[in-house]
């Protein structure tokens, strides 16, 4: 019986020739990740075990959630992480001014790559499926144990195959693909399952599109969301990923529990209504929804290409007088490149606020909290009740084109409406 990509990576890391869905295994880990919210409790658990770190080059600590420190307690959390990193000589620790959002910088710096197995104490760790790795989110206890042992337990998931066909129309981005998929299968449509992408449509997707799509696999309940390795992957990882890697491809007779097809040529810009990422609606059909804030950034859409799309719409326009538009580059490198390309100037000329990389408003931490009754269009990945502030505020999820168009028009809009 053939194996899919997820099974191959898991088998390889468990030291087994083959695994099948449902099997419980212990795997060796290539990378272990935590942030300023999840590392401190993980460190507490780690210390209970009383062992050194398993490998100081295979742990990444990224203080991105409440940084630059939003309050005294958050400063304490960041300090705990910093001191731990120093004590154990953690190679991949990123200080403010050199940091970015974890799921933007790990692929960007080549810390994660094809065939690698990564766990992170952050649910959007599934992002690295875009570069043909297996990666998934865990909690702090798993993470604490992993930092000591370099291992974690897994149940081999069943898999769903998503076959992409057709050509991607103008102004359609990865966000439209994934929101459409979650709208089709539901927020628990892939519960406990692997999502594997396939089909000729994969070649239509840039690495930025793929990172956005894999990032939101968890929003369908998925354990991971993995893309095959192709020329686009090779071009992205070459020169970035330093250690040797081994890409994976599914066997011809790989087993999938379900197959879902998406014809990219049929996609239109979509938005997910509050309070679930699966409440997907075509923007063209929603009527007039006035908004108060737009957030462009996050681990979902905070990369250079995302900012380029937003800048394309905002260039020569002003943010609507009733709207606050906040743009947050996902990493220092993205910030710098966006400056060189003139995007930052475009944002500032349009009347947007541009911030240093941080998760900030995405999780309602700081840098753009919503008041009661306010509505935001956001390129982030979750629109749960209260996610961005007051419990009676609302978040609509969209890609950078729709978010930027909405910022200009003061209501949720498709990019073509900005003349």
């Amino acid at each position, binding site marked *: 019986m053939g194996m899919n990509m997820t099974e191959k990576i898991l088998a390889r890391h468990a030291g087994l020739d083959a695994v099948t869905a449902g099997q419980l295994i212990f795997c060796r880990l290539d990378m272990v990740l935590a942030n300023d919210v999840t590392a401190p409790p993980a460190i507490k658990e780690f210390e209970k075990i009383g062992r050194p770190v398993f490998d100081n080059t295979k742990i990444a600590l990224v203080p991105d959630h*409440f940084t630059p420190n939003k309050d005294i307690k958050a400063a304490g*959390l960041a300090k705990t992480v910093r001191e731990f990193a120093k004590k154990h000589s953690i190679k991949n620790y990123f200080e403010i001014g050199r940091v970015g959002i974890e799921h933007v910088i790990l692929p960007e710096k080549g810390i994660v790559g094809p065939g690698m197995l990564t766990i992170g104490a952050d649910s959007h760790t599934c992002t690295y499926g875009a570069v043909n790795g297996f990666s998934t989110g865990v909690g702090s206890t*798993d993470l604490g144990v992993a930092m000591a042992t370099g291992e974690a337990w897994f149940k081999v998931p069943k898999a769903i195959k998503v076959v992409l066909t057709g050509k991607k129309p103008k102004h359609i981005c990865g966000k439209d693909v994934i929101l459409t998929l979650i709208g089709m299968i539901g927020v628990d449509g892939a519960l406990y399952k692997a999502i594997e992408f396939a089909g000729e449509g994969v070649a239509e997707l840039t690495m930025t599109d793929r990172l956005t799509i894999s990032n939101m696999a*968890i929003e369908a309940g998925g354990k991971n969301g993995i893309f095959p390795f192709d020329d686009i992957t090779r071009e992205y990882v070459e020169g970035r990923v330093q250690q040797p890697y081994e890409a994976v491809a599914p066997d011809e007779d790989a087993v999938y529990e379900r197959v879902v097809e998406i014809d990219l040529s049929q996609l239109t810009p979509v938005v997910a209504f509050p309070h679930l990422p699966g409440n997907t609606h075509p923007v063209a059909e929603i009527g007039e929804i006035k908004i108060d804030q737009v957030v462009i950034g996050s681990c979902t859409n905070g990369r250079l290409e995302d900012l380029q799309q937003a800048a394309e719409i905002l260039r020569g326009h002003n943010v609507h007088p009733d709207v606050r538009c906040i743009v947050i580059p996902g990493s220092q490198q993205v910030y710098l490149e966006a400056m060189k390309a003139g995007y930052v100037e475009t944002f500032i000329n349009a009347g947007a606020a541009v911030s240093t990389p941080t998760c900030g408003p995405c999780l309602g931490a700081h840098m753009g909290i919503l008041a009661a009754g306010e509505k935001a269009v956001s390129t982030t990945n979750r629109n749960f*009740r209260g996610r961005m502030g007051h419990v009676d505020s609302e978040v609509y999820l969209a890609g950078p084109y729709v978010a930027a168009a909405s910022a200009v028009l003061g209501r949720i809009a498709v990019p073509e409406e900005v003349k």
Partner: protein
Amino acid sequence: MSLEGKVWRYGDNIDTDVIIPARYLNSFEPKELAAHCMEDSDEHQEASFAANVAAGDVMVGGRNFGCGSSREHAPVAIKASGVPVVIAADFARIFYRNGINIGLPLLEIGSDVEKISHGDKLRVDTATGMIENLTTGDVFHAQPLPGFVQDIAKAGGLINYIKEKR
């Protein structure tokens, strides 16, 4: 372990932002988290969970309980509220792992969950997975935990398990 408790019933897709909002994640002190547990829920606003939960009360949710973030603060907040077990149709996977890893038993009973209402009294045996609804007389059986996951639960969580194992 057999226990009896009153039910706090919640719906489908209870997410971790509802269980413990991000604004409280600047602490991981269990008691502090418990004080804000379920604070943003639409349900039971007349008598909030945090202020009215009694030690031994059981939390019961619908489908995809615990979806969203990987924050272990969520099961920790529930456990620190005195809730000894959570029952749902099914759980989001990171929440499920975290529950097992911190020693909070989680039982999945699929659509049988519809036969449990807010305020019902349950008798739960976390080892066998047998659940009796003492209010209605219904009896349900949850899937037992598989393989070494049961050993992790028995050890009281992953840390103890690892310490015992190696």
